[in-house]
């Protein structure tokens, strides 16, 4: 038997299961984590913010 876990690409193996977590805590996960969870359900829509890591600037 081939398991779904074995067949899932490594890049998608870490998502968050929010089914038992209050909505307020889910929203607090931040855009990067939220996007990771929903991106497959939004084909054609790319992440909206900062793909580049913000460099550390302190002007």
């Amino acid at each position: 038997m081939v398991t779904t876990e074995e067949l899932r690409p490594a890049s998608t193996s870490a998502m968050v299961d929010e089914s038992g977590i209050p909505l307020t805590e889910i929203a607090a996960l931040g855009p990067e984590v939220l996007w990771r969870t929903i991106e497959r359900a939004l084909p054609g829509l790319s992440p909206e913010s900062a793909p580049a890591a913000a460099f550390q600037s302190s002007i």
Partner: protein
Amino acid sequence: MDGRALTANQVVLKVHSRCDLACDHCYVYESADQSWRGRPLVISRDVVSRSALRIAEHVKTHELGRVEVVLHGGEPLLAGVAGLRAILVELEGALAGLCQLDVKVHTNGILLSEDFCDLFAEHGVGVGISLDGDKAANDRHRRYRDGRSSYDPAVRAIRLLAGDRYRHIYSGLLCTIDVANDPVSVYETLVALRPPRIDFLLPHATHDSPPKRSAAAGTDYADWLIAIFDRWKADGYPVRIRTFDSITATLAGADSSTEALGLAPVQMVVIETDGAYEQADSLKVTYDGAPATGLDVFRHSLDTVLEHPGVASRQQGIAELNAVCRECPVVRTCGGGMYAHRYRSGSGFDNPSVFCADLLKLITHVQDKLPHVSAAHAAARLVSEQALAEIGRGLGGADAIEQLFRAQQPLRRSLIAAVYETAMRAPAVSSRIRDQVHDAWQVLAAADASRPDVVNAVLAHPSLHAWSARCLAGLRGPTADRVNDLLHLGAVAAVAAIQGQARARVMVPVVAGALHLPGLGRLVGLADAELADLEVDTDLVTVRAGTDVWRLPRPRLQAGDAFPAEPWSPDGTPGYAVAARWEPVRVLTAPGIRVAVDETGPYRDLQQGAAASRLPDADFRQWQESFALAWEEIQEHHAPYAPALAAGLGTLTPLPAVTPGVEVSGGARPAFGAVGTRLPDDPATLSLCLMQEFQHVKLGAILDLFDLFDPSDKSLYRTPWDARPWPLERLLRNTYAQLAVCGYWRNRTAGGGDDQEHASRRYLHARDGIEAAIETLAGCESLTPLGEHFIAQMRSGLMAIG
């Protein structure tokens, strides 16, 4: 490394090499590297032009969809309004039609004026300002050369950005940590300035020049940030904090959004005012000349910069780290810390960060406080291998469909949370709409705290996914449209309050004279209103629109009754509101199945194409009769499909007939549980439509959870159903839907009767098409292993049909 091509998607453009402040913690002027002394004051037009061409060249080479340019210094505003305008025009001209260009400017704010803000608003430039906290905290380092405080002019600039006029270009605040400052006081000061985002930056330090601490082995910086994290969490996360977001992101397997954390390859290049390429500015604290590459925009491409040994060494992920880091339990989040912070004379960068103990303590603390982040229970794991195999074969029983339903719950909770979180930050959202969305979210969150089962049921409405996608798409960029769609969150929250027996007050949009409550129905007759104030109480729901007020009995809303709305006046006298009427969602019923008819919801057309308007009663009765007969046909002749339909088909959207006699039906990816169809001429055809379109529902839910193919594959594939080739997903979806069509006609051939010959022809036609399509799919190189497995199950399902 994960196989991604090395690209520079962030370019820091130094537009002025001097500063009007003399902060004693500035890495540009006060660090080991003194290369600024030899740089031109202002970037020349030639350097700007060559830089823009180099960026465009890189975008074309790598087909980048987006690139970010950060205007930096020194102090970039010293380049002046005209100077910055020329730079922006040059960049926009070079990249027009090539990719999305996002420009940001990082400034101390001293010179920020309405003229600068107008320029930035005109060109969509986000503005980040440095502020280290309250006046005492800020004045500890951020002073003019003569010692004067820079606090007041910086705060004036921030308030200019925080006002409604320029809020859409306010990208956030940057705060360099000094542990001598009170962390909570710093946090409160910054939050009060209403930034969309805060970056707390560790002060640049190395093992040669360590940061100041109360004790050599202390964790002052972790303790400082933990105090803020705990307060931030207790406050309900009122603002995004990049440091904490990056920790949660990396704990969940995503990339960090700061170079100070995570293992993602460095994708940033600095261009100095003389056109020299440099590595990260932070390296200036290590030794004189450390950031230098010896490369420049006149002679070298950005690809050449990425091949530079100093840059390339930072593309290796965990492999580039020292042995201590590689064994560390938090290495995937910490990433060894900022590269410069690892430096020590002699061993170079082959050391843990000088903030190692702080990072370990902080990450562990966040992990402990947000255990769900690293639980890594993918929603996909809610679907068993057996269910996936059953669905792959084109069927799937009630239990398999129930698993898909359960897996949709976390997805939908994340979708609505993403809409809320994005709306709170999006520049296009006015403070009025933001406040209303926030209020609606509070109602929904309160309902969720007491009745998460009710909220899950409300979020299961098929339109929620399509509405979320529409909102998230509409929130892009400073001129995003459709922000009014966000107010539908009020309607979702209102339904949660009504169904959860909670008290609440929320604003709900009025669309074409009707107030829509998803899953319940609509109040019609509110012709002139755009918004209604909806107050949910124990027994009554009071609706106020303009000067009109109506009271709706809550039990009747929940019971699905149709009734005239009762006008009401606050003093108890009979009301004089215009006539309004509550129209409930109607339901098609047959033994063992109930299907809501979405004939009025404002987002129903996003799922199914153009939707029909509310059916006249006579038409609805016709639908009911046809539906009952269609269900009888399914149970009698297509029994293997019935359990899944009974368990999973929750909503039907009537579609208008485009051409008489031509069947129109659809099942959309973002509408789990819903199909759309016109009313066919005979019930048997309706049963075929339901079976076929429900295939799309099942496969859409699978695609929401699993990668069956590489989504970046833009190839077109030969299809037996069209002379023109199709994208991979469309071919897969249609092939999967045809499995039910094939099964339907196969069953009809077995049933005897006059149409047996016709059924046989249709069966063979469908079968031939599926066989050809499966071969195309199986030969596609973009399938994941799970996709190959799924296609094999589809082939098995076809063989089982006969």
